[in-house]
């Protein structure tokens, strides 16, 4: 038995070839696969069924929490903790609280968008097995990669490599752990 590997990876020249390959692999029944490209490709999300993520919900919650906290902070300080009586005008002067409530909504929503993005992507992750493939450095320049991971139930080293070869890649390589 060989040393366990992370998966096998095929390298392509163009986004069209990568999308076609991802679609073929997905139709073949592979589920544990990922594609790597130097820019976002909408059709790829389609091929890999990646249309839904939780980020909008996280941002919505962040915004609601920010706005609520912003308003309550002003209410508590202006009415209870440090009231300033200006000629008997109401302490709960809500119209003047709108701006800071709005700013806090945007601030917390934006922070949750960024940290939500990092959290959902599992970043920071300085090491990843794909970086062991020398040519993978080109994934951030002009090459497109499809990786079928060894944890896929259909994965079989020789047969998966053979299958990837039928997709006419530039090269098929093993991804070591």
């Amino acid at each position, binding site marked *: 038995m060989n040393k366990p590997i992370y998966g096998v990876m095929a390298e392509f020249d*163009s*986004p*069209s070839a990568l*999308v*076609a390959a991802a679609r073929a692999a997905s139709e073949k029944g592979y589920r544990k696969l*990922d*594609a*790597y*490209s*130097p*820019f*976002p*490709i*909408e*059709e*790829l*999300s389609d091929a*890999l069924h*990646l*249309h839904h993520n939780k*980020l*909008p919900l996280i*941002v919505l919650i962040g915004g609601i929490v920010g706005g609520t906290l912003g308003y309550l902070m002003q209410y508590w*300080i*202006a009415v209870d*903790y*440090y009231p*300033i009586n*200006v000629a008997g005008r109401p302490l709960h*002067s809500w119209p003047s609280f709108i*701006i*800071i409530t*709005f*700013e*806090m909504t*945007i*601030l917390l*929503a*934006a*922070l949750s*968008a*960024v940290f*939500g*993005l990092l959290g*959902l*992507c599992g*970043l*920071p*992750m*300085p*090491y*990843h097995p*794909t*970086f062991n493939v020398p040519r*993978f450095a*080109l*994934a*951030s*320049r*002009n090459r497109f990669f499809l990786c079928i991971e060894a944890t896929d139930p259909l994965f079989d080293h020789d047969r998966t490599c053979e299958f990837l070869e039928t997709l006419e890649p530039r090269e098929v390589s093993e991804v070591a752990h």
Partner: protein
Amino acid sequence: MADEQQVIDKPAPQQIIAPGYTFGTVTDQIATVVLTKKTPIFWFATFAVGIGLLLLFLLAVAILFTKGLGIWGLRSPTFWAWDITNFVWWVGIGHAGTLISAILLLLNQRWRNSINRFAEAMTIFAVACAGMFPILHLGRPWLMYWLFPYPNTMGIEPNFRSPLVWDVFAVSTYATVSALFWFVGLIPDLATLRDRSNNRFLKFAYGILAMGWRGSARHWSIYETASLLLAGLATPLVLSVHTVVSFDFTIGIVPGWHSTFFPPYFVAGAIYSGFAMVLALAIPLRAVYGLQGLITDTHLDYCGKVMMATGLIVGYAYILEAFLAWYSGNVFEQAAIANRMFGPYRVEYWVLVACNVIAPNALWFTKVRRSPVLLFIWSLIVLVGMWLERFIIIVSSLAQDNLPGSWRIFESTRWDWATYLGSIGLFLFLFFLFIRLLPMISIFEVRTLLPQAKVEEEAGG
């Protein structure tokens, strides 16, 4: 079926960037500016000017800290002058970057992909320069954290009914959201620099900043959602930040300030001056670094159009300002406008009218918008005009307020000049560090502009 829908193919969009680029060449052209050992003389020259002026700024601030606000020309009744003028001017400049990165993204204006990165950097550094002025103007700047509500032993808290406290929240939120949006946009390009660099230290530094980005389709899908959401969140900021800045004036009852059309007027002026700064930076940079293929004459043309449109709104606001003063029947308002036009500040007033109302009309002509040299000169005219506009609004209203007995004409001192020029130095210093250390054009977004980036799928597949 006879009434089958007739589908007209969309006409092929005009090429945004010059033909002939590939994924490899755009990557290399933008990344080499950062990864090369050769730095152009232009960079050194501008950076030297930046450092020189930054030192002047530090000197001015040191003297301000030791002697107090009196070193500026602030005398009763004019306690807001160059400092607040500079603050409004710098914050306004920032707005173009957010407009380009957020609003133009939501409107699917793909040409923005070539200019959004450095425009956003411009936003962050302009807001940093802007933030200096209200802080230095506090009198005891080292206590600036008192502006924020925080638990303290003095048992006091800010008054949330004050527009100045709104401003603290508006500007600090703006700075934070702009920096976050900018950094998120940088992550894939930092990964490119990590992979392209041969130097171990740079590989490590860019690698840490890229946080292990590997271009996974799963990540890209979340990333695209995040970009859209951040753009959606930054969009109201484009309109709200200068609105809140204008509240600093409109909530007061000073003649010439107390009017409801200030927010849209300020926002238009902000975008106007911001696009001028974008052009003033883009035109020399693309010439020095040979990026005319990526930041094309079409980009300059579009920026010129936005500048002209917002300039016309600003011109309309000046007319409205005079009309409303007359129509209000309020003698103080009428006197304030008359003082601006014919009083001690008439020279500044008519120069600003020339810069902001007359000059932008040259941009009706394609020849002007397509000529980098003319456009560069025009953008400087606009920047001067917008500075004068804020100066006139602030100083002429305060120097000649409701009580003629207290009037005094404002005179600037050399430390006003030193602080203002110094803030330009701070901006140049930060901006040119950015040019040298980070990609000034978003590499991955420019890749999507190439015709090769379009996925061709087999029919029925």
